[in-house]
């Protein structure tokens, strides 16, 4: 599949997620008659805690915390800011967190819209089920179609190219591969993953798999959901909200300052999975599966910055080459307009200095 070219979850990762789902029932097998057994396991866990404070349970990879205090409901506990190391590495991690949370300001040369990494990777990349960076770190490099190896550096570059729409940034391109922001970000991700097993599949990785919709997804129904549930933050025009200095408060989810057509989030299925697990921000999990699919269809049937893969091709040609195998509105005609032409005025979010 061509999916990874534009940085979508790889087939391998998708398969891994399914495997994790399949494993879940097996993890919940302890019966009441085994209380002592559990106590013993608990004692072992406590002993382990004494050795390794980041971990709280024998199944270490069931999720991650939310909120800055850490210690959320999950069992893989990522480090908190209080555990930031001193010195050059601590400073680099702090730079990375700032960049991750305020990308269109801190890496303005390479951002051609009004988005930040944290808009898709919630809680500074820490939230389980929101493609957390601790789970991603231990999976890379990954292998895509053909012989291509994708390192974390490549993957970050892909996020800039598509989710940050680097084509319309001041530099016109993602950060060059020798830019120090890659080192800062990678150190941050590795620090988040400290103690996690290289190559392990951690529950909470990616977005949770979403069931197919009972009815075919429908942007018209989605529009009603959007108006009721999403527009208060993201705006009727999908333009989000930001502070005068450019710091994003609510990300633009379509239009000139949003992710471009090549971003993973323009895949209706991927966005539906993200929305189901993570939106609305103040009450995640409250949308039905059908509503998540429908609102994803609405958001992703609006115009947005053009596909960087299009180059000299027509929309139809590019659609055939790069938009098959997943649900997308790219190249479809909605309200008399062929989607994919690109939003006029695509570029960085205007801001005062």
């Amino acid at each position, binding site marked *: 599949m061509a999916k990874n070219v534009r940085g979508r979850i790889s087939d391998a990762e998708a398969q891994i997620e399914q495997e994790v789902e399949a494993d879940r029932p097996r993890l919940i097998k302890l019966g009441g008659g085994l209380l*002592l057994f559990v106590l013993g*396991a608990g004692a072992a866990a406590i002993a382990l805690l004494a050795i390794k404070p980041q971990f709280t349970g024998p199944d270490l990879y069931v999720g991650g915390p939310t909120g800055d205090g850490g210690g959320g409901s999950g069992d893989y506990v990522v480090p908190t800011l209080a555990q930031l190391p001193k010195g050059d590495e601590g400073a680099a991690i702090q730079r990375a967190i700032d960049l991750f949370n305020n990308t269109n300001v801190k890496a303005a040369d390479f951002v051609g819209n009004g988005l930040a990494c944290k808009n898709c990777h919630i809680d500074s990349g820490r939230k389980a089920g929101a493609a957390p960076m601790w789970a991603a770190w231990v999976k890379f490099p990954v292998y895509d179609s053909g012989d291509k190896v994708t390192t974390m550096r490549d993957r970050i570059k892909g996020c800039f190219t598509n989710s940050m729409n680097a084509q319309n940034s001041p530099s016109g391109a993602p950060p060059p591969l020798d830019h120090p922001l890659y080192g800062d970000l990678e150190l941050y991700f590795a620090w988040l993953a400290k*103690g996690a*097993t290289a190559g392990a599949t951690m529950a909470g990785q990616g977005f949770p798999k979403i069931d197919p919709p009972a009815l075919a997804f429908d942007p018209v129904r989605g529009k009603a959901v959007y108006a009721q549930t999403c527009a208060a933050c993201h705006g009727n025009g999908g333009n989000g909200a930001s502070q005068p200095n450019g710091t994003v408060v609510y990300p633009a989810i379509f239009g000139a300052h949003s992710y471009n057509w090549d971003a993973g989030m323009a895949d209706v299925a991927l966005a539906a999975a993200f929305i189901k697990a993570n939106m609305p921000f103040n009450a995640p999990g409250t949308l039905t599966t059908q509503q998540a699919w429908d609102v994803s269809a609405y958001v992703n049937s609006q115009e947005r910055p053009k596909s960087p893969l299009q180059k000299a091709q027509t929309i139809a040609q590019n659609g055939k080459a790069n938009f098959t195998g997943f649900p997308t509105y790219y190249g479809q005609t909605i309200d008399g307009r062929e989607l994919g032409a690109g939003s006029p005025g695509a570029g960085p979010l205007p801001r005062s200095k």
Partner: protein
Amino acid sequence: MVEGDGEQPLVRTGIVAGTFVAGIVVAALGLMAIMPRTASTAPGGTGIGGGAAVSVASFTPPALADIPDGKDGDAIRRGLAIFDDPRNNAGQFVGNAMACKNCHLDSGRKADSSPMWAAWVAYPQYRKKNDAINTMHDRIRGCFLYSMDAGNSPSGGAPPDDSDVYRDLEAYFFWLAKGAPTGVKLKGANYPKPVLPAGGYDPAHGATLYASTCAACHGAEGQGAKQPGGKIVYPPLWGPDSYNWGAGMARIDLAAGFIRANMPQDKPGSLSDAQAWDVAAFIDSHERPRDPRQNGSVAANAAAKHKDEKSYYGKIVGGQLLGSGIPKARR
């Protein structure tokens, strides 16, 4: 044993304890399943995010025979091929006769030989050498620049940043490290640190040792050994085809650690700490390709890049200013 009414409280306690212990054991087994090759873990670590050097976890990398099929296996095999023979598999970027595996023995698998499985989970990290956060990509680039003397390679430099040389090598390292805990210092990481004798190191004594212990393979002039077809059997340790003055191995302390744990190859561990220091001093008191970071004089570069290190760079040995480099043509 537990049948009947006459069950003793003591026995029950035994069962209780047994069940409790079983729980502990199973929990521990569960942990081992999660971290398949890790015998023990501890907090902190000297890798990612710093911390005190209190942790040591054991780790055994997979056998090369277990490289998987498929496109991941293909990338891993390409990385391994570069690692073992960069002159033939990444020759554009190699300016001498060295291979990755010369410093990282057994294809980067051997403990105490800076194994790549331990390095993988320790990067990115801050390095004083370039005063920057270094990813594995950056670190590989450094090996090409210094240990492989890339400035004298056909391309005149290390692999460009978008080269698949990095991707394939990283694929190989990642595969070696699968199952290792991220950011935890592993037993066998880097080289050991042999104790420096009170009297310091002695290159003259090292010369004697070299002649008796090292020269059979590496040659009386440190030139190494090649097969008639050009295949390198033993790497050169100084001279034009060896690592340059910017390489870690040009530091006496690092070379001593490597030698102590790994040399001679047929009898590693047979040299004492003091002997390892002496022979390292002897090897690293010879001229080799210049430090590519040198812009001005050797003295200026010594002050800028070789301060506080145990090295002969910028020192006069046998009337020669070491660090001047060896004139050599690009490969």
